[in-house]
């Protein structure tokens, strides 16, 4: 077990390092335009360009530039935006993080609960119209662009049906901190949670159903039935547990990516000032230092989430320890 952990830590560190190099290369070494011009933003003057070159060590060799960048991101944490003059990037990211965490956490709770229920019901009634209906529903959820769904939700809840009993409780777009008003926090996030979770409910219900169906064919399930264990226990203890292995590994990837800013489309549509919205605003005026910082932050979350998932995996499936 200790050996397994040590190996995991080493490979996590390796992936983190590689991703930071990849991000660095994308922003500093893509052939085409001078990176200084990119960082300085649109129509920057010579003075700013000079400043950027000095700040990021662009006249020095690549490895030095990489080191300067990493130092700015993690040690001195004084990466500054040149588009929004002098704005420090890291504090902005840290400030936005709770919003994103609130959004993703709530959505995750909804999608895990609903998709497990959907997957279980569909697998139990396999071949019935109920199964087909649930799976088509899931497929529709996967096929809708999330930002479009968000706009339709806004259209109904903020405008067309706002004065009906259905949506009269919906506050204007934006985020209310939990510390300010827990109820307001819940109200401001309920629709974004539901919108964000639709896609994942679709994916997870379908994945879970197919792995449940597969597990039902296994010999140990037949044996369990043969022993006279109740049907409920067979599904929960024998089938669902093994099927959760795929589910959990998928969940780790998606949760990490969302916390890291992949929820930006939902944040943009609902006006939530999270990390994704920060990235989006930076995109609007090509503010590269901000984009770099959020992408790096995101990638780290994904890798961390993966490492945690791997540990969970071990407790679900002890065989992995020997692999």
């Amino acid at each position, binding site marked *: 077990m200790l050996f397994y952990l040590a190996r995991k830590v080493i490979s996590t560190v390796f992936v983190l390092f590689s991703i930071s190099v990849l991000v660095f290369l994308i922003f500093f070494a893509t052939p085409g335009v001078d990176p200084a011009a990119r960082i300085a933003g649109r129509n920057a003057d010579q003075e700013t360009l000079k400043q950027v070159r000095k700040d990021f060590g662009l006249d020095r060799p690549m490895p030095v530039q990489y080191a300067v960048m990493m130092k700015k991101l993690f040690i001195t944490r004084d990466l500054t935006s040149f588009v929004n003059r002098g704005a420090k990037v890291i504090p902005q990211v840290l400030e936005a993080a709770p919003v994103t965490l609130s959004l993703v956490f709530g959505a995750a709770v909804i999608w895990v609960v609903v998709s497990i229920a959907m997957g279980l019901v569909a697998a139990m009634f396999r071949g019935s119209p109920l199964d087909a209906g649930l799976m088509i529903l899931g497929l529709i959820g996967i096929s809708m662009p999330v930002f479009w769904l968000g706009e339709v939700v806004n259209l109904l809840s903020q405008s067309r049906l706002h004065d009906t009993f259905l949506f009269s409780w919906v506050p204007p777009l934006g985020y209310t901190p939990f510390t300010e008003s827990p109820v307001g926090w819940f109200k401001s996030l309920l629709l974004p949670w539901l919108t964000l979770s639709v896609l994942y409910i679709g994916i997870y219900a379908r994945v879970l159903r197919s792995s449940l169906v597969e597990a039902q064919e296994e010999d140990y399930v037949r044996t369990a039935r043969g022993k006279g264990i109740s049907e409920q226990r067979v599904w929960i203890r024998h089938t669902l547990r093994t099927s959760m292995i795929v589910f959990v590994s998928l969940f780790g990837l998606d949760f990490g990516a969302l916390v890291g800013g992949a929820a930006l489309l939902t944040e943009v549509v609902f006006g939530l000032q999270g990390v994704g919205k920060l990235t989006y605003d930076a995109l609007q005026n090509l503010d*590269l230092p901000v984009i770099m910082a959020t992408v790096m932050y995101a990638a780290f979350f994904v890798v961390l989430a993966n490492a945690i998932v791997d540990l969970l995996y071990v407790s679900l499936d002890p065989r992995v320890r020997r692999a």
Partner: protein
Amino acid sequence: MSEALVAGPSGTAPAVALAGSPWALARRRLVRNRIAMAMLGVFLLIVVACLAAPLYANYVADTDPFRSNLDGTTIVDGKEVPIMQSETEGLGLGVTPIGPTWDPQHYFLGADNQGRDVAARLLYGGRNSLIIGAAAALLTCIIATLIGLAAGFFGGGIDGVLSRALDIVWAFPVYLLAISLSTVLLTSGISLGPISIEAGSLWLPIAIIGGVYVPYIARPIRGEVLTLRNREFIEAAVGLGASTWRILWSDVLPNILTTVIVCFPIVMAIAMLTEAALSFLSIGVQPPDASWGTIILDGQGLLYTRPAVAIAPGIAIALTVLSLNVLGDGIRDALDPRAKIKRHRVG
């Protein structure tokens, strides 16, 4: 004896009747899948409609969907009305484009905030969305096949390097990778050796979207090639003195082709959603070109007054992606009869 022989085949007659190449069998299975066929119909209908965009714009609606038309007029119920109408509701400030007239000849879905015909833009935009989706999916499948073949077949150092590279890209959230690449290349384009793509070209989103999904296909293909490599028929080919290229081309490739074909519609669906997202973030298709994503972006400002502008392209995306997903499921079932048999046994 002879009677038994005659009786035997009669029992298996259906199997004999079905015999043919595996592809023909698969096609027959697919054709029998009614839902998949219906969705194929929907998909083809959308493709044909989008291909006919210039016909619609020039001969039916008589409009130029790429030029702003703020002072123009159109005909509703036989009366001439301005396309940009003065606000009558709310504060009475500003102008609102004309809403859907449901008349195919005059602004069927209304106008956007530049007075352009939304219906015509929807069709033109669909062309770009479909082209980007299909080309990106093709690119993904080709690159992934090459990488998967090389890594799985040659193993050793080549596999080590390629698999590590795939792992790193895999660990990177797809959307953020696509966003980073699009942002960096948006204004400058890219020139890598013989390949050079101008800024604003459709090839830019195609290359980016096609690139970021490679690991998702390449990893399973690599796994399949790894198991194929140790099969007897490959060994036999090696023993017969077949060259490496010959083995790859005529023994390995045909066996992984089904995987690639099953993946294609699903990758295309994902690529179209990604394109829509990038365009919505204004780093995909660049104006004056349109795609379904950019039209949703255009409609965002008009959401509460003229919702049709944003809603129509969303429905178009959802329908196209849904039909591709259903088709993908159907093709998978048709090509992998074992999945079918399994299903029959219990359900």
